[in-house]
């Protein structure tokens, strides 16, 4: 790391010597690999399936650091998970930074390090990138964009597409819901909740690969990020034209998240996750899938949370713990805390 500057200056983005120092001393140092070190304008990539999956995502989270991760880790997990739930094996990612003038060089290095660490963990190679610096006030500290390419085997091409889903099929999730959204909100706002709510931010590709390697029965997968489980299930119900019935008592929710949602008046089903996947399969196949998931560190609390039903086509209904039923809609706008 270049010790001469402790803040990002406009010169770090102007294409000159300082930018090259930044790339060399920070990005190449942590991301370094043969493809990136070529420093060509575009990376030339070997592929080993006829079809590839391609996705992109931008990360503008506030605060940059939260319990369970930071924007760097999140930027890798987000793109890796989008590829993985589409049935792809994530392989390459690009990383672009938009930095605000005056941003702390030390914080940037922490973020870059955890980005590199998560990429190693997920076994994806950072093959290209870009850095821009904007005047103070023109962005909020740091924005990151990542794009990713994954290899898709023929047999896995349909898993994101929700085909052949019928009443009786089950919906599985790999653990507690709402952790990311509430951890970030707790870090951002001045609630001072003492409860240890930790983001579930994680790359799911290894667990998903294991499921796809051992089962051919996955009919649909999606990561319930912004908008939460409710939004994914509503999109699914609309697409397949069947109803979905969630069993409230089966929903895995941590005590801390449950209490925060209760106090702030949020529905946990609307809160964002960053390390969760929803899997749809036949009842019979679900047993094998659950076993695979529960044996993986990221799926210990996996559970069947809902069923596809022939009633109320296109709608998602929650069977409440008290014996009633209610409609679960997609999120409208941001979840806001209410006065009463």
């Amino acid at each position: 790391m270049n010790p001469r500057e402790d803040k990002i200056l406009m010169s770090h983005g102007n294409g000159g010597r300082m930018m090259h120092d930044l790339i060399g001393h920070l990005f190449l140092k942590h991301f370094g690999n043969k493809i990136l070190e070529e420093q060509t304008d575009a990376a030339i990539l070997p592929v080993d399936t006829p079809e590839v999956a391609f996705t992109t995502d931008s990360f503008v989270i506030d605060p940059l650091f939260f319990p369970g991760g930071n924007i760097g880790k999140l930027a890798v997990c987000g793109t890796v998970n989008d590829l993985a739930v589409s049935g792809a094996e994530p392989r390459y990612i690009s990383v672009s930074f938009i930095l605000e003038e005056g941003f702390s060089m030390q914080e940037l290095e922490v973020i870059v390090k955890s980005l590199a660490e998560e990429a190693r963990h997920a076994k994806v190679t950072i093959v290209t990138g870009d850095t821009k610096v904007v005047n103070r006030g023109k962005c909020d500290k740091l924005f990151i964009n990542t794009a990713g390419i994954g290899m898709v085997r023929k047999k896995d091409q349909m898993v994101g597409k929700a085909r052949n889903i019928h009443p009786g099929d089950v919906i599985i999730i790999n653990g507690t819901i709402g952790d990311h959204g509430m951890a970030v909100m707790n870090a951002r706002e001045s609630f001072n909740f003492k409860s240890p709510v930790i983001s579930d931010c994680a790359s799911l590709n290894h667990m998903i690969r294991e499921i796809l390697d051992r089962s051919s029965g996955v009919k649909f997968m999606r990561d319930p990020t912004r908008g939460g489980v409710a939004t994914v299930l509503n999109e699914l119900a609309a697409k397949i034209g069947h109803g979905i019935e969630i069993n409230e008592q089966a929903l895995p929710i941590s005590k801390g998240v449950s209490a925060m949602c209760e106090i702030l008046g949020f529905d946990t089903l609307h809160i964002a996750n960053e390390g969760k996947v929803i899997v749809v399969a036949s009842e019979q196949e679900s047993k094998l899938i659950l076993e695979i998931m529960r044996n993986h560190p990221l799926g210990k609390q996996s559970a069947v949370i809902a069923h596809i039903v022939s009633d109320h086509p296109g709608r998602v209904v929650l069977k409440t713990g008290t014996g009633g039923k209610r409609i679960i809609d997609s999120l409208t706008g941001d979840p806001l805390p209410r006065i009463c």
Partner: protein
Amino acid sequence: MRYVDEYRNRELILALSEEVKKISKKEITLMEVCGGHTMAIHRFGLHSLLPSNIRLLSGPGCPVCVSSQHFLDTAIAYSKISGAIITTYGDLIRVPGSVSSLEKEKAKGADIRILYSVLEALEIAKNNPGRPVFFPGIGFETTAPATAAAIVQAKKENIVNFFVLSAHKIMPPVMKALVDEGVKINGFIAPGHVSAITGTAIYNELAAGYGLGVVVTGFEPVDMMQAILMLVRQIESGTPKVEIQYRRIVHPEGNRIAQALLIEVFNHKDDRWRGLGIIRESGLKIRKNFAGFDAEVKYPVSVPEPPDPKGCICGLILRGLKKPGDCRLFATTCTPSDPVGACMVSGEGTCATYYKYRR
């Protein structure tokens, strides 16, 4: 979760529901006054556990819903004052005024900040001397004491740039007005949070003078079912009275400190309720002693009174005379993401609740 799970116990709810079914003979209508109660009934599906001779009507107890468009238009006008900071509870941010909302003004560049407590507004005012910090105050006896406490604190600390636009309202006048106007009910499921502040004497006239049952209750399904059972018992035996189900929170005398704060800071005024019109002595106005913190005194703005939206029957719904399904705008042109009327604007409004849970 302790203090929550016990009150959502399925066996208890079903046992209470069975008892209601057993003893309830008359055709009765109960009004849940508070938006929080409406939410709880639908969230937990309680209506499906009641016999068909018991009808529940939603009342006017959603503070966002009953705040007039004029109030929102005034808050929006303040957001356009040079240097102004609007501090608000999250509830108000998306509520449409006649042409805009605070959310839309924020996108245009207004400085609008969401608070969890009104006391945060004092911190913002201290950190931004020279900039007027406005707080549009909404809510009933539940939230009004917090606003009063902030005003008293601002005076104590000599904070000169904190201003409250008060749309605070009180419950008893509107409850009486509804009955006076001919809304046919047999009893009130009375608001727990309001009563925690006011105590229960405010309902005595409804029981003694109007012969209505009043049971103060909480917001969990066991609370509400028990309250309904208590009301059914009163009505079946012909002995309407004021009772407290929510004893873990509400005492007959209420919270004297909060009551004193309300009296110190506010006096009553005739106030406009969205959908209901003007109700005598139903609003809280900041007293002259605290006029320095009254936005309407320090920053008088002229905002025209907007007409009620065409085709909207919110006034009838807030009076319990119609249900959302009776409105031709419901779930067609009027939805939570694009609300037309008062009852759809807040998550606790009757129409929003029906839209969310019972469409």
